[in-house]
């Protein structure tokens, strides 16, 4: 069925995508919240910055990551010096690339949900003794769960499919950064590699299908009975 080499690729891809999505979730939510609720100078700029990885070709994003997070880059040098973390050529680098590419999708979905929260309910929670933070945790956060889930699914599938930024920033190292899309690409580069490509593509699709089903189930479970029917 699935060869050992394919298993290794699947595991790597899942690791990269999961770390990317879980690591980005809180950041994306915070950004979504800021953009939805706060007016501040530079808000539009931040919005544009968040969308940047969508607009700029992935290869350019990878190139920018290389400049910023590379060992000689301003942030990369600090990461290396103070935390001993190197990203380039590491699976962590692939996760960072995937996270950056997934960010705009996650922020948008979450923001849509945050915008839709009925503030009267938050006000009600406050009168019942909830601090801003507690009301956020118990009212806003659960009410925006559909947006969080949608964002997570979008981000996860986008991460699973991320290619250009990853190969540019983290290279295509078997076992370290050769995720499913990179393996697929590699297969496409040789004439007659279509067979292997098809297998890997089907695996990708099944993984995302599984992610979709899980998320649908979670959403259904968590919103069951909550909405009015007639």
């Amino acid at each position, binding site marked *: 069925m699935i060869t050992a080499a394919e298993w290794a690729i699947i595991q790597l891809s899942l690791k990269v995508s999961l770390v990317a999505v879980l690591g980005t979730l809180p950041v994306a939510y915070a950004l979504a919240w800021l953009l939805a609720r706060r007016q501040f100078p530079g808000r539009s700029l931040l919005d544009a910055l968040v969308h940047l990885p969508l607009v700029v070709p992935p290869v350019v994003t990878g190139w920018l990551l290389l400049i910023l997070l590379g060992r000689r880059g301003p942030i990369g040098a600090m990461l290396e010096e103070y935390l001993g973390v190197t990203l380039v050529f590491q699976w962590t680098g692939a996760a960072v690339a995937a996270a950056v590419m997934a960010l705009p999708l996650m922020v948008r979905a979450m923001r849509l949900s945050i915008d839709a929260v009925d503030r009267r309910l938050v006000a009600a*929670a406050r*009168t019942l*003794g909830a601090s801003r933070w507690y009301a956020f945790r118990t009212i806003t956060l659960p009410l925006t769960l559909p947006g969080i889930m949608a964002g997570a699914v979008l981000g996860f599938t986008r991460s699973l499919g991320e290619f250009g930024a990853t190969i540019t920033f983290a290279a295509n190292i078997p076992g370290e950064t050769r995720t499913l899309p990179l393996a697929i690409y590699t297969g496409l580069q040789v004439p007659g590699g279509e067979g292997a490509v098809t297998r890997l593509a089907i695996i990708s699709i099944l993984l995302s299908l599984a992610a979709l089903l899980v998320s649908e189930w979670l959403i259904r479970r968590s919103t069951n009975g909550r909405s009015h029917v007639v």
Partner: protein
Amino acid sequence: MSFEIVLNHTVGDCRLSVDFASQVPRIAVTGPSGVGKTTLLNCIAGLITPETGKIVIGGRVLFDSTERISIRVEQRGAGYVFQDARLFNHLRVAANLAYGERLRQAGHSGVDRERIIETLGIGSLLDRWPASLSGGEIRRVAIARAVFAHPRFLLLDEPLSSLDQERAAEILTMIEHLGTAIGIPMIYVSHQPEETARLTDTILQLAPR
């Protein structure tokens, strides 16, 4: 002094101007629709900041524009039954009731949880989602949620609308008991003179201007 409510506030075309003080434990607020009753309660709860004014309830200064005092919403200790109920749709009835109960150990705690649930007739609803409740059931759950939140005072915005008279009478008795026995100050908005008459003689009549 139980109530001292002095305030000026404008929303849209509605200019709300109140200057009222009283020692009684309970007051009623009446006035035609759109006069500013709900706005007044929102000011007292701290959801709206009045342009100027002073709000003292049960001897506690909640707001004073000249002294620049404005207690935070969650510290005011209101038990607010909203005109539009505002149940948390993502929590079952039991969790709605527990929401404020868990948060404030401070305020009054002499409420007899079981008896209130029985009087309100919501015992069988605890496991239900708010979206499946009838209009009157929503109202009753909203009353319980406010009362269970260890309130320092109650703000009741037409709490008995859409309840049948028998049940309404029982609930009124219960509310009265909260006022007398436990001594929670109370502001009661209603259009039903019979209701207000049972609770208090002191009526703050708002008039359009």
